């Protein structure tokens, strides 16, 4: 076992710092001011607004839950809507955890980073965590996620208290923060062709499925769009391999052995 340059506590603090410096802090602040105000308007208590933010920690699901109560939607229907909106968390968690675990990591070590996984935390973790020593990435992710939750709770409290004084257009503007920030942050993290295609296919296929009245459009559209993007990625990889073999074959030169490149 070699020594690790930074301690767990320092990695946790790095995560907190990354949360504060992330552009998402502004987005989270705006979004959760709106959420706090929504809770106030729909007759929830302030402790409920805080508890729901800590326990659910997923913007779209939280908006569905409060709106459902406000309009008296049946429990079963609301739970199905939340279940569908939460679906994205499975592949997000499955994509993040292999980057941050070590052979010594236990199941329960992963519970907190998995719970803290939300779009904002996921985007920043995928970007920053690989720069840290592997043994400290979980601590980093916990610091990052907890920093973001604290910002969200503070904003929800502020929104709850200010609810009656906020202008009407403000409500529309804070609800727009979620799709706008998701769009640009996903685009920023999509450096490879497969990610860009998945994004573009998802943007177009899911609304078409929803318009056609297909059940579970989000699931069907997402899986199909992601799989199509992956298929293109595979085809491109195979074509590239084949053409590089052709090129070396027609040159009549043996392909260079690894480590023998120019």
């Amino acid at each position, binding site marked *: 076992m070699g020594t690790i340059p930074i301690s767990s506590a320092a990695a946790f603090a790095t995560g907190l710092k990354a949360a504060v410096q992330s552009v998402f802090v502004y987005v989270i602040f705006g979004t959760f001011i709106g959420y706090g105000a929504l809770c106030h308007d729909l007759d929830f208590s302030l402790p409920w607004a805080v508890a729901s933010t800590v326990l659910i920690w997923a913007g779209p699901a939280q908006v569905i839950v409060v709106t459902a109560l406000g309009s008296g939607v049946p429990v079963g229907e609301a739970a199905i809507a939340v279940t569908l909106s939460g679906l994205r968390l499975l592949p997000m968690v499955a994509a993040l955890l292999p980057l941050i675990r070590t052979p010594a990591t236990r199941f329960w070590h992963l519970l907190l980073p998995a719970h803290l996984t939300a779009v904002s935390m996921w985007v920043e973790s995928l970007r920053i965590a690989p720069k840290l020593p592997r043994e400290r990435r979980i601590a980093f992710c916990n610091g990052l996620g907890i920093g973001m939750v604290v910002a969200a709770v503070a904003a929800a409290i502020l929104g709850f208290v200010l609810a009656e004084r906020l202008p009407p257009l403000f409500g529309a503007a804070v609800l727009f923060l979620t799709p706008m920030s998701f*769009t640009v942050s996903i685009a920023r993290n999509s450096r490879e062709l497969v990610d860009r295609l998945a994004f573009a296919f998802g*943007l177009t296929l899911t609304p078409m499925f929803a318009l056609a009245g297909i059940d579970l459009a989000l699931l069907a559209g997402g899986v199909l769009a992601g799989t199509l993007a992956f298929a293109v990625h595979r085809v491109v990889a195979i074509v590239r391999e084949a053409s590089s073999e052709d090129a070396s074959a027609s040159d009549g030169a043996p392909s260079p052995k690894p480590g023998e490149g120019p």
Partner: protein
Amino acid sequence: MSTTVRELGPYLALVLVGFLPNEIWRIFGIVVARGINEDSELMVWIRAVATAILAGIIAQLILTPPGALAIVPLMVRLGAVTAGFLAFLVVRRSVFVGVLVGELALVIGASLWPQI
């Protein structure tokens, strides 16, 4: 099915309708992540599906928005998200600039073309 959230009480409703249906996916995510190599092609596919589902959520939030955002006309919502995305591309792929320009476009557009 006909039980309303209000009859359950706010905290039981929070756990049953908000916490559990959401958290279950995170737990499944931990289970699925076991045995996946971070450099494998399976990982590329999982990331592609996550990205596509997120894109679908974005599209739905813009096309059939919740609450107060629905009062802003569809063309203004589409125009604002396009403006924000273009600003992001032009100004050094800055998320901050993208969100700021998108928000400004939405507020200005909603003021110029209020819902008829």
